[in-house]
């Protein structure tokens, strides 16, 4: 019949092309092109969105490639689980796609494996034809000001990790006794933190926010949140959806400084639509024309302010305030620069959250790393001067963008890899052992990997506990507990 010929033709076409736009069953073509033992084997380091999207694309584009995903935690999904705010469950729908990928017959997930410590990248390169580094950005960008290490000062990454149940942030003791909180940075992460600090408990208690965080927020005395940026209203990095959520947050009212919006209304007409709508909404909030029931909680932007020093309380152990340098703007638009004027102002506050960006760290001596840009040097996902090494996601292009940005970026890396397989740039002629070579190493080193079906046991248990509490899930906070549930 015509259809099977069309299918096979489409598959041949897709093998020859970099960009693959047709799906077809893999069985037909395996008979035609692959011999047993000659499947290309790819290892992906990192089980977050970048890792999963890279795997997804590889599996679709090549009918025989085997993809193994290694993840340091026992559980997958990275920032989708630990970064996306608890009150944004729709954003987490991508987990369904990742689950499909993990359950693909040519894909396997290996959790609880620390690449760089339990197994080296060199050992992975011996076992696989290609290694894709998708391990993200687990470090913080430091403020670089005195007082940064006082109690009451947190990075947004750690604060978010704490309310989202990241095991390494389990013991963050969030001090929420202060009436005023200052967040440094005006991106979406900053707005997420502000929103979680001020959200009514009735909303939060129905989300997958962790129990300790819920209890801490229930006892919180924070009533006023200032979101501080070094440039002006036209340079905020957040997007309109998050701003609208703040404007509409029940029980809160915007509190801005109208003087900081001088000249902004006039600039509106020349702005591209996305920036224009965002700025219009901000202006509306600043003019106090937004509805908000019960104004006991307030939030607002403060512009043209950079942190200079975090001021200690008299007992010197914790933060009591922040000294902000006042800036002026040079230039305009996205390229405008903040220039210090020399003037400062002090704000009394006991909670300071620095939301100025995440940062990647080097994983292994075998992997080149650019310490200035804090990324792996690469061209279109091919690691420079390292054959057989690729990268995708934040470790490739820096820690910005939403999940869809990472998705497109990962597809890009996968395309480069596929292209290299087709041109011979990547040698796939020698058979490689893949996970069969890695498993004995892990066993010898006392590492017990967690499979995807092991994760599903953890998943089921979390959802069961959540149901009892009226939440979608009650996250486990402790690696030991996760491993116990995984190997039950």
């Amino acid at each position, binding site marked *: 019949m015509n259809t099977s010929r069309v299918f096979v033709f489409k598959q041949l076409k897709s093998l020859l092309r970099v*960009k693959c*736009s*047709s*799906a077809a069953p893999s069985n037909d073509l395996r008979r035609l092109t692959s011999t047993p033992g000659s499947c290309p084997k790819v290892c992906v380091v990192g089980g977050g969105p970048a890792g999963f*999207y890279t795997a997804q*694309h590889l599996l679709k584009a090549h009918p025989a490639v085997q993809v193994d995903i290694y993840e340091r935690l026992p559980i997958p999904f990275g920032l989708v689980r630990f970064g996306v705010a608890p*009150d*944004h*469950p*729709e*954003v987490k*729908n*991508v987990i*369904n*796609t990742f689950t499909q990928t993990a359950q693909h017959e040519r894909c396997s997930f290996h959790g609880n494996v620390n690449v760089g410590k339990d197994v080296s990248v060199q050992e992975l390169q011996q076992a696989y034809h290609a290694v894709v580094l998708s391990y993200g950005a687990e470090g913080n960008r430091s403020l670089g000001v005195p007082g940064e290490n006082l109690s009451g000062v947190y990075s947004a990454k750690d604060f978010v990790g704490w309310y989202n149940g990241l095991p390494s942030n389990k013991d963050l003791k969030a001090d929420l006794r202060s009436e005023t909180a200052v967040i440094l940075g005006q*991106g979406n992460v900053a707005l997420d933190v502000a929103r979680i600090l001020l959200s009514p408990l009735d*909303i939060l208690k*129905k989300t997958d926010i962790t129990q300790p965080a819920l209890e801490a927020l229930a006892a919180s005395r924070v009533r006023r949140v200032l979101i501080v*940026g*070094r*440039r002006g209203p036209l*340079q905020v*990095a957040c*997007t*309109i*959806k998050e701003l*609208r959520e703040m404007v*509409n947050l*029940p029980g809160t009212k915007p509190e801005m400084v109208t003087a900081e919006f001088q000249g902004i209304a006039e600039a509106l007409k020349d702005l591209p*639509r*996305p920036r224009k*709508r*965002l700025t219009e909404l901000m202006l509306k909030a600043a003019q106090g024309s937004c509805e908000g029931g019960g104004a006991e909680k307030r939030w607002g932007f403060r512009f043209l302010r950079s942190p200079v020093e975090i001021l200690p309380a008299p007992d010197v152990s914790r933060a009591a305030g922040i000294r902000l340098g006042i800036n002026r703007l040079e230039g305009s638009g996205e390229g405008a620069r903040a220039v210090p004027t020399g003037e400062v102002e002090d704000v009394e506050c006991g909670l300071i959250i620095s939301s100025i*960006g995440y940062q990647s760290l080097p994983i292994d001596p075998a992997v080149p790393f*650019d310490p200035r*840009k*804090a*990324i*792996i*040097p*690469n*061209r*279109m*996902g091919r690691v420079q001067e390292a054959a057989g090494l690729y990268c995708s996601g934040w470790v*490739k*292009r*820096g*820690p*910005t963008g*939403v*999940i*869809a*940005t990472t*998705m*497109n*970026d990962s*597809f*890009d890396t996968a395309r480069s890899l596929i292209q290299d397989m087709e041109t011979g740039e990547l040698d796939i002629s020698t058979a490689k052992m893949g996970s069969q070579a890695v498993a004995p190493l892990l066993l010898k080193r006392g590492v017990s990997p967690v499979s995807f079906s092991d994760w599903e046991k953890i998943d089921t248990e979390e959802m069961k506990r959540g149901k009892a509490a009226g939440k*979608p899930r009650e996250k486990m906070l402790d690696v030991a507990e996760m491993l116990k549930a995984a190997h039950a």
Partner: protein
Amino acid sequence: MSVAPAIHRLSSASKVLIRSISAHNSLKTFSLTGHRDQACIRSRQFSCYTRPLRSENKVTVHFINRDGEKMTVKGSPGDSLLDVVIDQNLDFDGFGACEGTLACSTCHLIFEEEVYKQLGPITDEEMDMLDLAYGLTDTSRLGCQICLTKSLEGMTARVPESVTDIRQPDMGTTSSS
């Protein structure tokens, strides 16, 4: 057989009504069901409640993919364009990542001027996400929010290029702020 689809339609319509009321109160209901229930919140409020049964009521639509290839498929009135893409197994890379819940812009589609004008009102929520789409045009909409009606018979929607189709030789500069 004629009763069951009508009942199904009524119950999904009432789910939609509840969801649209909640949306006005700024409370989010969680997506426990699939993409189909989440799509077309506004449009379904005003559409007919009985589901047509016969195939003459199908609507033909064309999609142009990122390679410029034209695909012709049929959908039912009330289906969103995302529903159609998924049901017809149209293979657009990364399309509909958030499953129709207005949490991404990956179902971004570009329409012809005359068709665009017929597409019905756009909500703030849709525009907020559309604002993030790469290659935004004056006739862009999110496919998960566009519901098929008979008047859209024969329309064409183009899947725009995604960010990475612009090749940059040196990727990986962190954004400065």
